[in-house]
């Protein structure tokens, strides 16, 4: 599939309230192309709630329920059950939540919905911080990153939500990022066609939050994959497959030096050599984990 083959239907309207160069709008635009009109979006407090623009207008062209920050997966549960009772199971509730609303304050509702086998898609668009409130650390903020609540860099390693979700053994899990629109589209489409809980996490480099020029949004996304900092894969019923450039890296292609990615971001400007080393090690570990997982499967 090439970019030109992506559907031209749009479910977001021009003139929305996203920042210039916003990754989240790119991600949502592509996701909705795959999800189609029989979609109900559930959106917790986040940049995505703002991007919609102000009442009485909205820039979203699929039915959208805004909901409290910690509650999106629970709202989707209610919608899924109601749709079933009302005979509208062709419609799918899709949570579209930030990393804050997924890794931190929304985790419990998410975990509960997964355990119950809720028939929905949960998308976590991960910009690695609370951007809507002005760049505070989240559970997804990487080690060392500056935010307005970690002035000298975050002291802890990030949580890995996808790994937590794996522990729930759901039918579909995938990671994606905006620089790989066909990959993102295909994963969304695949998820759309399955049943039960499905989880997709999309890395979204955010210019004001990561402190880079707004024209570099897609470039930052691509570099994250090519340096190995973000890994693209999908897990269907427990079976992992690597995709796009991550597959190539797995197959032996060399990762770009991590510094290329770090140095472009103002949030990492203060990092010392040993910090960079620490990040590299943690990335190596992550790859090791996934490689083993891949290997194990082949056994």
């Amino acid at each position, binding site marked *: 599939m090439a*970019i*030109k083959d*992506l559907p*031209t239907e*749009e479910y*977001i*309207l*021009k*003139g*929305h*309230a*996203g920042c*210039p*160069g*916003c*990754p989240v*709008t*790119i991600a949502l*635009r*592509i996701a909705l192309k795959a999800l189609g009109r029989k979609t109900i979006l559930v959106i917790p407090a986040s940049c995505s709630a703002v991007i*919609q*623009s*102000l*009442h*009485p*207008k*909205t*820039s*979203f*062209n699929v039915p959208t329920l*805004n909901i409290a920050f910690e509650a999106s997966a629970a709202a989707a549960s209610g919608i899924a059950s109601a749709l079933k009772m009302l005979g509208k199971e062709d419609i799918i509730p899709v949570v579209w939540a930030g990393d804050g609303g997924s890794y931190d304050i929304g985790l419990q509702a998410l975990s509960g919905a997964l355990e119950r086998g809720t028939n929905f898609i949960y998308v976590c668009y991960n910009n690695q911080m609370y951007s809507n409130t002005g760049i505070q650390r989240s559970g997804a903020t990487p080690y060392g990153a500056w935010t307005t609540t970690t002035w000298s860099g975050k002291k802890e390693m990030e949580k890995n939500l996808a790994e937590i979700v794996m522990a729930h053994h759901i039918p579909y899990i995938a990671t994606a990022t*905006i620089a790989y*629109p066909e990959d993102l589209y295909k994963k969304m489409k695949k998820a759309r066609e399955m049943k039960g809980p499905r989880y997709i996490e999309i890395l979204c480099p955010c210019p004001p939050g990561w402190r880079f*020029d*707004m*024209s*570099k*949004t*897609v*470039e930052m996304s691509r570099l994250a994959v090519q340096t190995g900092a973000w890994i693209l894969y999908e897990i269907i019923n427990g079976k992992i497959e690597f995709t796009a450039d991550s597959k190539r890296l797995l197959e032996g292609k060399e990762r770009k030096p991590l510094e290329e990615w770090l140095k472009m971001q103002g949030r990492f400007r203060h990092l010392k050599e040993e910090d960079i080393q620490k990040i590299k090690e943690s990335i190596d570990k992550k790859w090791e984990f996934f490689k083993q997982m891949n290997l194990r499967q082949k056994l």
Partner: protein
Amino acid sequence: MIEKTAISIPTEGAMGKTGTWRVFKPILNKEKCVRCWRCWVFCPDLAISRGDYPVIDYEYCKGCGICANECPTNAIKMEREEK
């Protein structure tokens, strides 16, 4: 509906003509364009549509420069907006 609650209607330009937010302006050079549609797919503001060649909607383009940055042939250039 009698009760009032926070219901909003899909509207193009809900935040107004966001082209006014722009400081730099993307200019397409058709000659260089290979119609790969990367500019289209990556535009966060739906400001590029797929005609024969990319069509930029300056009423809504916020001037982020992603299209220019991602164009494989440098067919798009960002220029300072003159007002």
